[in-house]
């Protein structure tokens, strides 16, 4: 039985694309309001009015954890998320290339990799998103996603990528 922590649930239908979550995320972690240093990113299709906030999926058999050459990434058991140990991390960026969702980024200013750490259990993006497009809920409430495990999500993303590739 995998641990059932709380997860970020994203209801993109509600998202208005205001990107407040990006701002508060970078303020929380870096002390400056710079969306490019945020852990959560809003992907926008302006013409369709479609906004999808994306952050780390805290995968179960996480690709980033598997490729890290110095084992700086591990699963935090209490909050059930994938954590970067910055004392160990050497900044090789293998995890950035390995993450299937582009959720691991490299902060060129602080020169370190950044990913969602659930703000130690009090996600700021959730706190500030008044319309509740991002919510912090028990994992079993996210029924659709919990039925599909990480591997399946991964293969869906891959298929999508392959399909896009075929269109080119």
């Amino acid at each position, binding site marked *: 039985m995998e641990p059932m922590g709380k997860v970020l649930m994203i209801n*993109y239908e509600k998202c208005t694309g205001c990107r407040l979550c990006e701002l508060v995320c970078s303020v929380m972690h870096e002390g400056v309001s710079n969306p490019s240093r945020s852990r959560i990113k809003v992907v926008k299709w302006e013409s369709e009015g479609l906004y999808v906030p994306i952050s780390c999926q805290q995968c179960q058999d996480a690709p980033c954890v598997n490729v890290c050459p*110095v084992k700086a990434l591990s699963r935090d058991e209490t909050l059930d998320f994938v954590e970067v140990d910055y004392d160990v991390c050497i900044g090789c960026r293998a995890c950035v290339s390995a993450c299937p969702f582009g959720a691991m980024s490299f902060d060129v200013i602080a020169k370190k990799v950044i990913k969602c750490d659930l703000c130690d259990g009090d996600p700021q993006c959730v706190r500030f998103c008044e319309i509740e497009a991002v919510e912090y809920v028990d994992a079993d409430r996210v029924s659709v996603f919990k039925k599909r495990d990480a591997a399946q999500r991964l293969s869906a993303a*891959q298929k999508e990528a392959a399909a896009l590739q075929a269109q080119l």
Partner: protein
Amino acid sequence: MDFDSFVEGPLLWVVFFIVLIGVIARVVFFLYAIIKSGTDRDFRWGYSLATFGRSFVPFHNAVTKRPLYAILRYIFHACLIIVPVWLAGHVALWEESRFGWAWTALPDAWADWMTLLLLALAAYFFFRRIMVKDIRLASSTSDFLLIGITALPFMTGYFLTHGSLDSLPFLGDNMWTIHVLSGEAMLLVVVSLFCRTRLSLAKCTGCAACELSCPTGTLESNDEGKLRIFTYSHYQCICCGECVNTCPEEAAELRHEIGLGGFFQIVPKLEIRSVQLKACDKCGAPFAPEPQLDKIGQTLTGDYLRFCPRCKKLDFAQTFYQLSPWTKKLKTANNHP
């Protein structure tokens, strides 16, 4: 004046003079390079000094990867400096010289043992270089030459003090001259000896973690188009070994380099490695070094490795959108795509 007395007299003084000038020049060049790089950009003085200092201690963290080898290397270098400076015979010569300097000498027995230890280690390093395939392939002639040049004065010095080869025809008569000459050669080599970082072409994946660890900003990488170029300057490098310690592929090495050519190359940076960057299969932007992706490909399989993080994010947002329960609702409600 015959050859012997020339070697032991004027030539020796000329060599000492060159060494003195060389050392002063190097200190000046080093300070200049390091101050210049410090004013150019963010330079961590405290950290640099600490790492520099730590590299004189045998157990600093850059050697923990190969502790035994590091200890042997440390002993070797300690003997290399202590024996010639504190040898009773040498101290006596300084006292007789026009300077009349004198200092306490090392007991003869100690000097003997240290010399033997140094020679044994030199032999070990030499044969290790020949026997171990990885090291042999990465070695150049100058690596072997360097060990030979270092060992020769000690070998001849040992024979001299013990008179063990005095009965041989040519060697016995000229041992003294050979000793002094080889000592002079060694001093000259030492002045033009640099410790230089190399990134092994076979092992380095181009991840640039070493760049992040370098406290002086000596090792730099720049992504220019489809290439990641690593540059380096031996005057800025404090030989702290942080890069060696950091590299996950054991690709960064600190190596001796005899370089007269590099002596006056103070500020310009040498290009030491260039790595091909993979262009995203979708948007075409170069995003990660090819060798590193190849390495990741050994652990993970997935088409997504061919896409840059930005395109992966877009892909995922799209997938997410199609998989999510709201899409279904929307689709039935107003035939949204």
